[in-house]
């Protein structure tokens, strides 16, 4: 038996893999990270697709990255710089708009214009959501206990969870229970009457899921997106300098500084098992590396159904992994633009009002622009997708990175990142070139309704469907969360019951990515928690 050359090998150089490796190295372990692609970052990458235009290809905003990780790995020292997104602007088909600004009073004025009642309710709503997010946060940092297990560790975990629940007030506990089980549409209908406000808010409840805003369970996803913070500012969203690749670069630098060895262009073929333990990996080119511990930062399906021979796992477990829902539902359209799209309000009254909020007409382009005029709009977008079609009128979340970070595009020109939902992985007839063109056309013609000059401004276009996410970033099904944030795929059920503690039925083999608790987004929690568990098991 060859002596292990490394203490641990991490498969996958996405943010979770790198964070996991960094924490292991921080504890003095000798760690190797193997990345399939020539570049690191997984779904958090920035690439120059057209000369001079740098795209945040997949993930495009930051918020959920755990502050303790930023602190402990000293990411700012390694180059992490987050530029806050100051606003969310929702243009409306009637030429009006709704916007939320960094300044609370401005947001209130905007809302008041649409509905005084909603303006009043807004603060209470925001307080409730922050309280709820605070209430859930401790669970994110907890290794989920298995309620069916009688092991001391799980019983202790259950006790901790029960104590945590008992520590909430009755009101908060009930509010949380409602929030976890209801639909984002029901939640928002209870609070607000303005369609544009409800549409824009409900959009956070569908991201990465294959459910419409009227389906129960989406309110939790909405809450998940409330858990971000930047520099202690709760629920703020931002854009990293150099895009998501900038986040990756800072984590990479931190990991390297801690002694992590990283090899790119090294696709793993199989995990080597010796004496019933994961003992190494074999690359597709035949190279082998050995280590005491193998960590997969790939999605659960690849981790368990592809890298390891099925004989090492119980049949029940494999069934559960096969049943794990990874239906990709979103895509991206990354545009290189010769000029700024014109999203300014068509209605003179609305334009006048916008000018009273911000004299600089470019301000709105520094924030997010959301095509989400109403809940019904998004629900209809979902209806197309559930029958196997890309939405004819999709929900689009737009950021224009070049407005925030001029290094992203040639001077005077722009890159625009459009996150689009719904784009089903299983599209009728498969993802042919015509299908992709049709998807792009749906997006562009939708955008044209709000920014008439968009078509002529396009000088380059990158179309990313869930099938492309699967092919390029290696995420099965192209689901951005490695598995939908559905109630039956959360906490002690993520990715499979009994195995939510980052361990797997194969000793020495661990899961450390979004498909594990607490799930997706550029969050890093899974990578860190897995490292903690691995170190606990270290003998």
């Amino acid at each position, binding site marked *: 038996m060859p002596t292990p050359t490394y203490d641990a090998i991490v498969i996958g150089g996405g943010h979770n893999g790198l964070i996991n490796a960094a924490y292991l190295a921080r504890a003095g372990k000798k760690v190797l990270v193997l990345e399939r692609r020539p570049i690191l970052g997984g779904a958090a990458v920035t690439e120059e697709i057209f000369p001079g235009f740098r795209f945040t290809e997949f993930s495009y905003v930051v918020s959920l990255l755990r502050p303790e990780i930023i602190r402990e790995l000293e990411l700012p020292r390694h180059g992490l710089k987050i530029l806050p997104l100051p606003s969310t602007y929702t243009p409306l088909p009637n030429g009006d708009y709704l916007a939320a600004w960094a300044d609370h009073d401005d947001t209130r004025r905007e809302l008041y214009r649409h509905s005084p009642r909603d303006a009043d309710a807004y603060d209470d709503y925001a307080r409730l959501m922050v309280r709820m997010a605070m209430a859930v946060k401790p669970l994110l940092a907890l290794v989920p206990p*298995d*309620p*069916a*297990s009688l092991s001391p560790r799980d019983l202790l975990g259950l006790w901790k969870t029960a104590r945590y*629940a*008992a*520590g*909430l007030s*009755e009101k908060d*506990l*009930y509010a949380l*229970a*409602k929030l976890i*089980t*209801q639909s984002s549409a*029901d939640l928002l209908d*209870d609070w607000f009457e303005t369609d544009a406000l409800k549409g824009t808010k409900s959009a956070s409840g569908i991201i990465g899921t294959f*459910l419409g805003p*009227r*389906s*129960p*369970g*989406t309110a939790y996803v909405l809450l998940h997106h409330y858990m971000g913070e930047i520099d202690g500012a709760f629920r703020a969203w931002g854009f990293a300098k150099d895009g998501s690749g900038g986040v990756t670069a800072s984590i990479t630098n931190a990991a390297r500084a801690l002694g992590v060895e990283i090899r790119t262009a090294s696709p793993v073929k199989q995990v080597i098992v010796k004496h019933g333990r994961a003992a190494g990996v074999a690359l597709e080119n035949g190279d082998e590396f050995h280590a005491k511990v193998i960590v997969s930062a790939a999605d659960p399906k690849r981790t368990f159904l592809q890298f390891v021979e099925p004989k090492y796992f119980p049949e*029940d477990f494999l069934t559960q992994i096969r*049943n794990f*829902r990874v239906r990709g539902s979103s895509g991206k359209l990354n545009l290189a633009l010769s000029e700024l799209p014109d999203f300014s309000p068509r209605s003179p009254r609305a334009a006048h009002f916008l000018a009273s909020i911000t004299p600089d007409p470019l301000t709105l382009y520094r924030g997010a622009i959301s095509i989400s005029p109403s809940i*019904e709009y998004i*629900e209809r977008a979902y*209806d197309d997708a*559930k*029958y196997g079609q890309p939405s004819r009128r999709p929900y689009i979340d737009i950021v224009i990175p070049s407005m925030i970070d001029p290094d992203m595009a040639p001077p005077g020109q722009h890159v625009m990142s459009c996150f689009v939902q719904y784009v089903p992985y299983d599209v009728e007839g498969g993802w042919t070139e015509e299908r992709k063109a049709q998807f792009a056309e749906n997006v562009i013609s939708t955008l044209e309704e709000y920014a008439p000059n968009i078509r002529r401004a396009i000088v380059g276009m990158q179309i990313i469907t869930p099938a492309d996410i699967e092919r390029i970033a290696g995420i099965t099904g192209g689901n951005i969360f490695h598995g939908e944030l*559905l*109630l*039956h795929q959360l906490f002690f*059920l993520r990715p499979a*019951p*009994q195995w939510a503690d980052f361990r797997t039925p194969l000793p020495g083999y661990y899961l450390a990515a979004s498909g594990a608790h607490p799930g997706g987004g550029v969050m890093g929690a899974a990578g860190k928690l897995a490292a903690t568990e691995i170190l606990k098991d270290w003998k």
Partner: protein
Amino acid sequence: MNRYDVLIIGAGHNGLTAAAYLAKAGKRVLVLEQRPLVGGFCVGENDTPTLAPFPRGILRPDIIRHLGLERFGLNPAPASTDLISLLPGGRQLLLSADTAKTVDSISQFSKADSARWPAFIRFMDRAAAFLEAAYATPIPRLPRFSLKEGLPLAQLALKLRALGPQDMHNVIRLLPMTAKEFLDEWFESEELKAAIASLGIHNANLGVMSAGSAYNLLHQYLIRGGWGQPAIDSRQVIAVLESAAKAYGAEIRANAEVTRITVENYCVTGVRLTNGEHLSASSVLSSVDPKTTFLRLVTPEPLDPAFVWQVQRIKMRGVSAKLQLTLNSSVHPFQSIRLSASSSATSSVSPLESVRFSASSSVFIIAPSLAYLERAYDAAKYGQISEAPYLELTASASSAAPSASSVSPSVAPSAAPSEFVLTVHFQFAPYFLKGTAWDDSTRAILERITLDALHEYIPNLKSQIENLKSLTPLDLETAFSLTEGDPHHGQLMLDQFFFMRPIPGYANHKTPIEGLYLCGSGTHGGGGVSGIPGRNTAKTILKK
């Protein structure tokens, strides 16, 4: 001194169950019913044979035992009728309590699925048994409760653990799933999945692709007692409960509409009737829905605004309509289905032998595919009547009630022997229509859609119709006091389940008003003719 210990508002199955339990324990009970006849929505207008939201029902076995309902004429183990899914091309899929028969039928669609059926039934039975235990568990207020209150919860948790890790996880996983996801894990045949999934949307404002429809599926499975439906007309259940309650000493007064629950110092003092009469009692049980109870019968003054807000938010959102077709025909309408089936089914699928025997007493559904059901629901999302609805059909000869032998003569209708009555459950027909309302023209649309849909399966139907009556969700509200026409008194959704039914903190049947209890379907364990909430409330009161 009050003449009664307990007043019960509403003589539906839950009101009567509670009355029988309480009277049996020696309480002086008076049940007040606004309609001229008892039975709530188990009994149709003017006692029409089957035009009631719940044509068939089954009480939980422990209720039958405790109340000795067999002595009052209830068959404790009724035969179960088959559920037959009508499919395009004259094919049929049969789901029956008889596993062998079902396996045989499924094997025409998928051999793999027929092999999995017995395991599926085993799982469903275990899951339903757990759900039943959950419904029987008194729910304390969370999060801080006494040891004594926590004991039943601990016992429930042990029952869950006793399922073993695998089934335990599967039961927990099931609840928030979509019916489609849940069934995708078991089966491959679209026809089979759709037939089962129809239970998941029955009376629910959910689609088969909405999260939580798997819970509704399990609930319906439990309440119906497995596959098919019990062959007991729910009017028989009512007749038996009525005689039991009376035999134990409860009084029942019909035509007695309560206008107000009177309250003093946050304690209930009695009820006032429309005729001005005031009845005093220290306990009042309301079996009407929570919205009616708190927003109409109790003046809002004694209630905390936050509580009222929560009650207002209870989701009712009825989506079902009922139609009744009186057919002038000497042939049972379901025999006509068979004829159309055998004539149109060429050599590809042989007619099902088993269907032949049970057709006339069976329940037929039109739920040919998951996409069909989902599209039917899509309409409801946007406030429209489904153009291609999910239908459930029952039929009987109108000269005799389905179980004539056991129904008391008072409720047995009499009609000409050559007539049949076909009852149709229609989904989705939402209470809230967008841009229009329930009136004669929308009713005409509802009836037209129904007849067109039926025509495909029973071609000669239209010519036989002698009389057509329909109940829209609005009719259900006006005729049966069902707010928004929701027969469940509140949607069976996960955010209105367990300790959140009817609203969080009040799943123990108690209310902010001392002495006022909720015992209807809108409370913990409710939804369907089961008697569970009535039983639970009576037990809560008797424990005091």
